[in-house]
């Protein structure tokens, strides 16, 4: 069984982004970029399934600018066997990415597609569900445990209030939550090996997909600033302030 793992290149999670002064977007020039943390978990899970012998090949996919190749090399250093970049400089929204991935699913016929639950830049949490809909596959989102056996996956999901377990028939789409696994560190020898692995580059036109955005961003602004707070010397003062000044208790 093949596994397809879509990965996204995003601003590193430790960077505090700044809004551009003309309100057209956030300033990401000269900012450190990395693989979306949920996608690292997705790659790790796919590689673990391969190590268990459930999976034969792990294919990493990314959609976006030329530099996404670095993200794909990272995925291959974790253990993906080969990679595909759908290269475009257009702004890609989840629906467009889901359509590109659907075309690749038709082409590669994977038994499982594992994505991160959301990208930490647009915070959408849509692509996996959209891909499942377009490819008419069952979905298990926000997975914290995955077991594959007999043409089915048993997936434990993190839901409001606790956990829920589903059984879905393969092929299927799974999106990862934080606690699915702890991604491994990539080692230098594996980074070197990853440089030799196959990386194919396609264009959206090759897949017959129109990636035009459906949602226009009119403005990006700073969130309202909180007014500066004060430090209190002790618990008694804190309680007094909460009672008399803030009136919240």
């Amino acid at each position, binding site marked *: 069984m093949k596994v397809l793992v879509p990965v996204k290149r995003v601003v590193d999670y430790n960077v505090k982004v700044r809004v551009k002064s003309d309100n057209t977007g956030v300033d990401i020039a000269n900012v450190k970029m990395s693989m979306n943390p949920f996608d690292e978990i997705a790659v790790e899970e796919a590689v673990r399934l391969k190590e268990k012998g459930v999976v034969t090949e792990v294919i990493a996919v990314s959609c976006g600018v030329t530099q996404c190749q670095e993200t794909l090399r990272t995925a291959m250093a974790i253990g993906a066997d080969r990679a595909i970049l759908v290269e475009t400089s257009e702004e890609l929204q989840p629906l467009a990415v889901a359509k590109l991935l659907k075309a690749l699913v038709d082409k590669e016929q994977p038994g499982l597609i594992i994505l991160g639950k959301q990208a930490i830049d647009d915070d959408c949490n*849509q692509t996996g569900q*959209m891909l499942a809909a377009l490819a008419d*596959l069952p979905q298990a*989102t926000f997975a914290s445990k995955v077991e594959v056996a007999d043409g089915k996956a048993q997936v434990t999901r993190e839901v409001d209030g606790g956990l*829920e377990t*589903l059984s879905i028939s393969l092929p299927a789409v799974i999106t990862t939550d*934080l606690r699915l696994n702890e991604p491994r560190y990539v080692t230098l020898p594996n980074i070197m090996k990853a440089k030799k692995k196959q990386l194919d580059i396609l264009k959206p036109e090759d897949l017959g997909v129109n990636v035009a955005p459906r949602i226009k961003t009119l403005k990006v602004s700073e969130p309202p600033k909180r007014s500066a707070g*004060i430090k209190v010397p002790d618990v008694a003062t804190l309680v007094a302030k909460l009672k008399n000044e803030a009136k919240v208790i």
Partner: protein
Amino acid sequence: MTALVIAEHDNASIKGATLNTVTAALACGGDVHVLVAGHNAAAAAAAAAQIAGVSKVIHADGAQLAHGLAENVAAQVLAIAGNYSHILFPATAAGKNVAPRVAAKLDVGQISDITKVDSADTFERPIYAGNAIATVQSTDAKKVITVRTTGFDAAAATGGSAAVETAAAAADSGKSSFVGSEIAKNDRPELTAAKIIVSGGRALGSSEKFNEVMTPLADKLGAAIGASRAAVDAGYAPNDLQVGQTGKIVAPQLYIAAGISGAIQHLAGMKDSKVIVAINKDPEAPIFSVADYGLEADLFTAVPELVKAL
């Protein structure tokens, strides 16, 4: 122009998140209908009919809708989607699971986690863990939206008198099935709806200490308990208590953060709280930059003292 709200319910009653979503739907202009898709959910449908501002409730009942499986619920929404200009889900685990599936089948972009309705096609939503607010305009004929519940007031749960109409339940996809669930039992207020939240971080050191220190404070204040990712990952608190970009988004009247440094990802989940109190022994902790009242102290002495003083 009519909006459809997909109710979140447990087959017996309507969950609070539905009420906030109705308010957002009313802000889009036009009538608001509510879909209750479930199993033996007549009581939930009757409760939905009471919500102020709702003009019609559509009730679809079938065993295949019992557990909110995305495949079946999406099919149910699509069966009636043709009548609506706006389809709104609460941005909860259930809503986020189904909304994009509906949008993709309708071939429209989906707008996640809106915090404000500017007009029928323009909305505000936070991006980059809440460090920027994007104003976005949908160019699609139908808008499929998830609503951040803390961004909108709850509609009144009574005062409405909508008609309940029955719809045929969509067929079972047969591709997924519900196996079981482990829902944590607690009698505290629900985290996302609580007026006061006390939240603990890694500094608590163990799950015993977490309970020993945070529970009395929560009891005293009638508060919900939250946790940082570090505390959850270390096993001090269950996953569903996590507050942050990838956990729950909360905006209570009072948020008390004990032993939480205040990483960007945590702040994303609580910085819209009305009053924030930080208790931390590190004077440089970033949490102090958003706290209205900061107390530089060891939480193991300060929190019990606080319980006593209340």
